[in-house]
């Protein structure tokens, strides 16, 4: 399949003022796209847009406010034109053992990491399907494929996003609309503050995820693992007996990775911000 040009395409990125979202905004702008950054922190979104350059737009966006999310997409279409690519990137990862997590923290993760992605995906399909073109990129995580102690709700919401993308992918066949599910390992952003590097979890930079997203938009495919070898690894681990797979997790240190960071002082600031994020779940 010929590589698709990104010149002049309109791209929306939720949670685009920081981390993976911001790196993706830079990479897509460099590839010629016109980018709209939505973020809970409207000022930061505007600053990020200015920093990204081009015609980039920075707007306040609370993805858990579904009518507000829809209105935001309407505004982008008014200002930049029909949306070609929607990157559902906004996400939070508060860490705790499940029995120590509060109901509010659970609700917030489900609202931001899953329900908002469902809403964004549906909104985008309704806009893109009549035009027979468009691409929805949902940022999940490797935690959407394997369970993680200390991040059970997070992992559950990311599994949900993976399941959503897989199912919607089949519904979209022949419509001209594409969907991709991005599964990065631990990325050096604020979200991963306080997490140790283990043998199986060397961290990557947000730029690496951004590059993978650009490549996936150019040549659409459903599963986007970052780094790529994790896709192969996950397939191999799946056919091993469960005991062997678990042994790999233990030897690699992956079984305690998140749980051991739950109370790390380096995470305090991120955990506070994540706890204050979003409205009340919408």
């Amino acid at each position, binding site marked *: 399949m010929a590589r698709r040009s990104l010149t002049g395409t309109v791209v929306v990125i939720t949670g685009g003022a920081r981390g993976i979202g911001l790196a993706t905004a830079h990479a897509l702008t460099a590839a010629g796209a016109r980018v709209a950054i939505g973020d809970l922190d409207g000022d930061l979104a505007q600053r990020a847009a200015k920093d990204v350059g081009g015609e980039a737009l920075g707007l306040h966006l609370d993805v858990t406010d*579904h009518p507000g999310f829809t209105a935001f997409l309407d505004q982008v279409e008014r200002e930049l034109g029909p949306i070609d690519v929607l990157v559902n990137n906004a996400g939070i990862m508060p860490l705790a*053992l*499940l*029995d120590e*997590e509060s*109901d509010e923290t*659970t*609700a917030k993760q*489900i609202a931001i990491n*899953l*329900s908002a992605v*469902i*809403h964004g*995906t*549906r909104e985008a*399909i*309704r806009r893109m*399907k009549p035009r027979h073109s468009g691409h929805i990129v949902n940022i999940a995580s490797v*935690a*959407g494929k*394997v*369970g*993680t*102690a*200390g*991040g*059970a*709700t997070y*992992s*559950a*919401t*990311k*599994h*949900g*996003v*993976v*399941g*959503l993308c*897989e*199912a*919607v*992918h*089949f*519904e979209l*066949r022949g419509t001209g609309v594409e969907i991709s599910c991005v599964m990065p390992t631990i990325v050096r952003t604020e979200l991963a503050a306080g997490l140790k590097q283990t043998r199986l979890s060397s961290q990557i930079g947000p730029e690496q995820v951004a590059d993978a997203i650009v490549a996936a938009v150019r040549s659409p*495919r*459903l*599963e986007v693992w970052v780094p790529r070898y994790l896709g192969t690894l996950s*397939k191999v681990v*799946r*056919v091993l007996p*469960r005991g062997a797979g678990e042994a790999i*997790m233990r030897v690699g240190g992956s*079984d305690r990775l998140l*749980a051991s960071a739950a109370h790390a002082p380096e995470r305090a600031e991120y955990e506070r911000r994540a706890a204050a994020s979003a409205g009340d779940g919408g």
Partner: protein
Amino acid sequence: MAKQARSLRGKIVVITGGARGIGRATATALAVEGAHVVIGDLDAELTARAAKEIGPDVVGVRLDVTDHAGFTAALDEIERDIGPIDILINNAGIMPVSMFEDETPESTARQVAVNFLAPLHGTRDAIGRMKPRRRGHIVNVASMAGVIPTPGASTYSATKHAVVGLTESVSWELRGSGVDISCVLPALVNTELAVGIQRTRASRTIEPEVVATEIVNALKWPKLMVFAPKSMAAITKWSGLLPRAVGDKMMTATGSDHLLADAITTGERADYEARVAASTPASDPAHP
């Protein structure tokens, strides 16, 4: 597996959504094993009647799993009246079928509340009770739709994937605690939930009793992933090795790619869809 089977005699078991389908079949199987079974279901009258029909010692309580405070209060009451809960089976679930873009926000919210958030709450609540006692078993009934693509039920599939991820994560957290957790992945089961869905080569429906048997076995010999029928385990495992294009072709060749989508407009589902749409008073903003 060589380990001796755990006895279920006298064990106190709570089953959500226990008045029908898989829940009811499981209640029946566990009553036969000598367990003290409590079924919770949304419809009080139906629940009382089902309890009486299943067995003389089976208790039926009204339960809306999306009302978390009410869910916890019901478990408190059971522990007060009968004793410490040994086994919680989070079984209540709904599957409205539609193309993803046609689904209403209310239907999405209801599925997330019943299929995902409620078992999460139940799991957390049960851990709080069981961990100090260093024993207990939590069983979350997910679905094969929690591990394979399910067009026509995308939100359902997302919620069931979420339950799989939740259960797998919690299994790591519970290591060494004495508390077990299992995730049940049934294929399409012959219950009201599957009404109007055509049988295809890859999707013969199974009877709820098959799932009940697998749940009983998983309680006797604890294991994390419980497939029903068992053959699904190997299919799931090895199909993962196929290149995506081949997997996609298999879905198409077996009709699995439009299995649920085809059922959207069948009149046979009307009753089920209507009941499901009215199923969660606590999560429905229109009925606080």
